[in-house]
């Protein structure tokens, strides 16, 4: 029986590795710390206007991948190219990349505005040409922009970090957990912002633990586990490949017994008035048939099209 992971596109056309014309092209990227491969032979490409989410459990290698993508960490093998230029520390092409790696952190004794100004001037740029008004509007800090950063909340720092990443109208954004510490309204604002930027042609590579967030904002996703790519594709492709089902019947206890004895059913658990069934590639029609044969009255059987399900299935399958 084919595993769910096997059904997923590992290198589909829309997210092909090292594709010609990809804005961000990662080829056989590997990073080892001693004997441990934190990122292991990762290849992917992100094209103009795409928002690609890196997904994976803690320790999957997402942040290390992003660090290598902006020249902070030296790869043990492979490379990252942005607009065709190989990324090395201080590469000139990084002028076209806005970034926020891990938490947004700042020198605490500076004000938000001073930090933005000095950050931009350090690269030799003129602050007046750095699209400051838009960045400040995104930061939404009001008068607090002139306060010392050490007085900022985590959410304010995060917003300032995103504003900093957007200085100078970058064509590529590399963001690590961009909505970390933000409230729901701010998360929605960032989602709208990223989708608006992608519509303008900005290419975004981000990592997130918030699967619902990735589902809503990303056009593409890459699932990583223990440093390796285990699936990649459009978010829609990943969700469709998920093989979970939600079932409502007249006798839940009896149905649970039937399903648990059915080959191809990985797990069954109660959810609300029904059952959530995780399938091991078995068609939902087979499940429905088994329930009817057992004399149960089937009221509802629907597929679960959620990225979270797909993600958990993929990671679960990979761990086997």
């Amino acid at each position, binding site marked *: 029986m084919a595993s769910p992971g096997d059904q997923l596109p590992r290198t589909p056309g829309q997210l092909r590795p090292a594709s010609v014309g990809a804005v961000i092209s990662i080829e056989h990227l590997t990073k080892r710390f001693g004997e441990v491969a934190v990122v292991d032979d990762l290849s992917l490409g992100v094209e103009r206007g795409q928002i690609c989410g890196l997904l994976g459990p803690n320790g999957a290698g997402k942040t290390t991948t992003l660090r290598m993508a902006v*020249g902070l960490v030296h790869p043990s093998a492979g490379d990252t190219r942005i607009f065709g230029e190989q990324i090395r*520390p201080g590469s000139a092409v990084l002028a076209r990349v806005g970034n926020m*790696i891990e938490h947004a952190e700042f*020198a605490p004794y*500076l004000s938000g505005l001073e930090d933005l100004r000095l*950050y931009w001037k*350090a690269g030799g740029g003129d602050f007046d040409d750095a699209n400051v008004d838009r960045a400040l509007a995104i930061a939404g800090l009001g008068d607090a922009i002139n306060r010392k950063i050490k007085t900022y909340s985590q959410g304010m720092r995060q917003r300032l970090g995103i504003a900093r990443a957007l200085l100078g109208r970058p064509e590529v954004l590399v963001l690590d957990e961009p909505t970390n510490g933000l409230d729901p309204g701010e998360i929605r604002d960032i989602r709208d912002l990223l989708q608006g930027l992608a519509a303008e042609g900005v290419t975004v590579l981000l990592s997130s633990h918030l699967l619902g967030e990735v589902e809503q904002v990303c056009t593409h996703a890459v699932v990583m586990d223990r440093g390796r790519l285990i699936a990649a594709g459009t978010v829609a492709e990943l969700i469709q490949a998920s093989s979970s089902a939600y079932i409502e019947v007249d006798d839940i206890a009896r149905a649970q017994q039937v399903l648990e004895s059915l080959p191809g059913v990985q797990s069954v658990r109660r959810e609300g008035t029904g059952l959530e069934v995780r399938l091991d590639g078995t068609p939902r029609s087979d499940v429905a048939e088994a329930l009817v044969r057992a004399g149960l009255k089937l009221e509802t059987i629907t597929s679960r099209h959620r990225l979270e399900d797909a993600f958990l299935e993929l990671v679960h399958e990979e761990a086997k």
Partner: protein
Amino acid sequence: MFALFQVEMVKQWRRPRTYVALGLTMLVPLLITIALKANPPGLPGTGEQRGFGSRGGDNALSYLSTKTGLIVPVFALEVMSGFLLVVIVALFAGDAIASEANWGSLRALLARPIPRGRLLAAKLASALLLAFIATLTVVLTGLIAGAIAFGWHTLDVPLLGLHQSVTETLGNLILATLYVFWGLAGVVALGFMVSTMVDTPAGAIFAAVGFYLVTRILDAITALGSIRNILPTHYADAWTNLFTSGGANSDMLKGALLQIPYIIGFCAIAWWWFHRKDILS
């Protein structure tokens, strides 16, 4: 490069610790002046105690300070270059990279099109400039306070065989300031090197101060013989002869030249290390 240096200097001037450190370089010469005025020291002793070498000059300089205010900054420099000034320049050097790593702001900076070598050069230059400003502040504060307290006179102590015109003393003071600063450049380079390796500034600062103190202790062990001649602090006090023996000597030249391999060595290791470093903090 200059833009990056400017940014580094602005960052330094925004930091309260810069003012505290420079405040100390003003406070100590003022306290020394007040102490000398309140309780003037007598003529240095006879025999060995009267010697004006690098080890016996303290009493002489404190005594000479009361003869003309021009010597007060010399005495302040002598007192401070033994420890406090070392701590202050170690602070500027050890903080340079490690503080940004500690805050996490280093990764934002290095993910920009800024070559690491250029960032290092800008930070080293700003640390050196601050070290020089700290040394200069000691001298200028001592000079002003000394002139007010003891006047602006020719150094003339026939009993000790000393005579220097005001111009001569001021020239020697400039030379002494540069020599003391240059003598601390090795400490700056070591602190800077360690700063590229650690994520906590205190580690780099302690390493630099520790390096200075250990070399001073080793230098005091005469049984080490000629090995002491290659210690970076061996000629650290040679500059006091400018005021007690009448002029520059070959020890000052040796001391100045001796710093060069240390500075080059520490900076080369810093450059090599920082270029191959993964920025994880």
